């Protein structure tokens, strides 16, 4: 915490003598800004992918989970009894919001692919379908299946697990890959900033020697480098994040519902990439301070 206070302090302080005394670091400066910008840009994309995959997984999971069906095939005489039994059971099952028998039209629509649009439903031994809308965490499918098998032997519960599992898995996998990328990018950036700071310090060994010789305190020397690298990283990451966000917004969007076409953030999610420059600044501050301390310890 005191580190963060130090950081805020040294950034807020107006440009002082220590800034003029350390030479402009030219290419290392541009390198730092560029690296931060590029990495922030990539991070924004990775974050967008992650967040989108997450959202997608949620949507798929809930869409499919919300509508389970129970199919009742029974000898005509028993159908009504079993349907009533099913509805009663469902009514008593925790996690079921509502259940209703599909209308003839809905059944017809479902069967159309197989029998054409003019299915003679009356003449067919078509099973009765009951749509189950879940609420909250959903119901215990196994328990329900067990109860149904005793109370309505002709009823079969289809909770779409078969479809849901791979889709949800795919989305959460994408999510995992996204976070992996974000973490990799973050670690890489940290390492690069550290190396760039070290390179700048090594290139300025002569300057540091002269400053020590004329009586400069370590704090004075370190501050110039630390301040510079922190500001540069924040600047670079800020630019990269901005361009990244613009690119995410500008990315051509496919049809509304297609998979991955909704790449981007929503609501408070937009704040997520804005943390990138802040995180970058914190990494740069501590990395440069450590590098400066190490370099200075090598001199008298």
């Amino acid at each position, binding site marked *: 915490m005191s580190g963060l206070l130090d950081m805020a302090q040294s950034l807020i302080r107006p440009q*002082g*003598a*220590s800034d*003029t*005394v350390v*030479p*402009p670091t030219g290419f290392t400066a541009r390198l730092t800004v560029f690296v931060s910008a590029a990495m922030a840009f990539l991070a924004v994309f990775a974050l967008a992918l992650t967040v989108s995959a997450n959202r997608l997984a949620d949507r798929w999971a809930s869409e499919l989970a919300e509508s389970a069906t129970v199919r009742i095939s029974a000898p005509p005489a028993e159908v009504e009894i079993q349907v009533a039994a099913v509805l009663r059971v469902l009514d008593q099952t925790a996690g079921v919001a509502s259940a209703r028998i599909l209308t003839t039209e809905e059944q017809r629509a479902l069967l159309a692919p197989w029998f054409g649009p003019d299915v003679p439903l009356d003449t067919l031994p078509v099973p009765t379908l009951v749509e189950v809308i879940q609420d909250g965490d959903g119901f215990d499918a196994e328990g329900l299946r067990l109860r149904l098998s005793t109370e309505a032997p002709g009823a079969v519960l289809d909770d779409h697990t078969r479809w849901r599992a791979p889709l949800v898995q795919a989305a959460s996998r994408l999510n995992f890959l996204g976070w992996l990328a974000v973490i990799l990018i973050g670690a890489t950036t940290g390492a690069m900033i550290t190396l760039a700071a070290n390179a700048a310090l090594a290139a300025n060994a*002569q*300057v540091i*020697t*002269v*400053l*020590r*010789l*004329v*009586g*400069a*305190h*370590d704090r*004075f020397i370190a501050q110039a480098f630390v301040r510079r690298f922190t500001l540069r990283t924040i600047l670079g990451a800020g630019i990269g994040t901005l361009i990244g966000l613009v690119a995410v917004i500008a990315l051509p969007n496919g049809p509304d519902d297609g998979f991955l076409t909704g790449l981007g953030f929503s609501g408070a999610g937009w704040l997520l990439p804005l943390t990138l420059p802040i995180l970058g600044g914190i990494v740069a501050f501590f990395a440069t301070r450590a590098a400066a301390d190490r370099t*200075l310890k090598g001199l*008298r």
Partner: protein
Amino acid sequence: MITLQNASYAYGADALLEGMSLELSQGSFHFLTGPSGAGKSTFLKLLYAELRATSGAVHLFGQDARTMDRDEVAGVRQRIGVVHQDCQFLDHLTIAENVALPLMVQGKRAGADLLDLLAWVGLNDRVNAKPPELSGGERQRAALARAVILSPDVILADEPTGNIDWEMSQKVLQLLVELNRMGKTVMVATHDIALIRAAKPQVASRVLRIQNRHLHLAGADL
């Protein structure tokens, strides 16, 4: 101000300087001479804590150099003005800024006397030049100006006249003598025996000589 008690120094295995004892009292003026590579610069580095004696004790303003931490070293250096033999400058700053550097690193600003000082060493028309744009002699004079800008208690000058002509050398010597009269302690390392001779009438100086690893008081032959 500065005392050495039986101090030795070795860069590697072999001792370069051995068993040196000396007291630089306030207001004294010393010359340090000896052949090239004898250890004059090394000796001065012990006095401004760039090097630590390998044995024996060095006290700077009463503080033991062996136990000083990094901030104390920085503090001591603000009280000692050094003209380094290889004139260490920051190439991206102007000469004026370089001369004012000891002030800047303390967060202070240079006053009008900066220009006076630069005029005194004959650099008034090179104020805004960068160090690589100076001639060898100009750089040496700038180094002298930087050494005295803080008005330090002790002035250590390592070959301050190596690259400058005789007339300019005399002027530099005069400045050092003047500073000495103001009560500053001065030590000048030089191989220029003519300079030491020229100083004789102006100041009561002692001449030290490094030879065969030891510090001697040079005789009247100089």
